[in-house]
């Protein structure tokens, strides 16, 4: 059993100290590889709801199709690059971190916090869309088969949301 006293906490220098368990670190390290195919998918040619959620239309009016095409042409690759950069930042931070007994510890400055929030949120958007989550969904995992891949996916989704909420509380 790994004991830790915090996941995120702010120190006197205004940085956010992070203490992940090895399992959490492994999960976060895997996000870039999981999301890369979705982020690199050509946007127009797909019906994948995850791609559509990460890259929604800009123009509400469907008759603005020319402006929409221009906007996507100008913005899509930048959006994908920015997201991949945040996921890379997360992976590199973990790879370079100090190892404790069953833990991975490091600190984040403002840019790091922004990258982490972005990566956590993109992972939740992708996973939540795949799981087709709803606002009033019952998040209780009790009674679910722990070996069911769907149960594990829900557990990851819930953990990502919990971590994001804690990080937001830490910087508020």
């Amino acid at each position, binding site marked *: 059993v790994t004991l830790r006293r915090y996941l995120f906490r702010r120190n006197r220098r205004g940085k956010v100290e992070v203490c992940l368990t090895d399992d959490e670190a492994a999960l976060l390290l895997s996000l870039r590889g999981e999301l890369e195919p979705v982020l690199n998918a050509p946007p127009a040619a797909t019906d994948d709801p995850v791609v559509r*959620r*990460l*890259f*929604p*239309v*800009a*123009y*509400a*009016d469907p008759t*603005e199709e*020319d*402006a929409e095409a221009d*906007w996507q042409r100008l*913005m899509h690759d*930048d*959006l994908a690059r*920015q*997201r991949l950069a945040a996921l890379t930042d997360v992976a590199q931070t973990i790879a370079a971190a100090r190892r404790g007994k069953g833990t991975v510890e490091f600190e984040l400055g403002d840019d790091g916090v922004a990258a982490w*929030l*972005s990566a956590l*949120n*993109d992972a*939740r*958007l992708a996973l*939540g*869309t795949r799981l087709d*989550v*709803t*606002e009033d*969904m019952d998040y209780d995992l009790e009674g679910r088969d722990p070996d069911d891949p769907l149960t594990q996916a829900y557990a990851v989704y819930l953990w990502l*949301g919990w971590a*994001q*909420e804690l990080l*937001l*509380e830490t*910087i*508020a």
Partner: protein
Amino acid sequence: MAVGAMRLATAPAPVDTPTDETDVRPDVPWIVIVWNDPINLMSYVVYVFQKLFGYSREKATKLMLDVHHLGKAVVSEGAREKAEVDVYRLHACGLWATMQRAT
């Protein structure tokens, strides 16, 4: 409202041109709408509104609650170019945002 030179250059000059025949109406402002979704955390949406638009915590919270309870909220407005950039920044943060002409 400030109008970009590019858009002015392509704007219809004659007064007798029917305005509904053209896409370019520089005098009409645009609004940016954020739509409710079941995934983004309420606290995260407040954080994004404060970070992107410099809104106070109170204003950001009110807009977030409008999105949550009413299904959508207008979070910014202005010229088309500004709306396009705001939509880009909101999408970069994972919020579901669209732009349309203010009516």
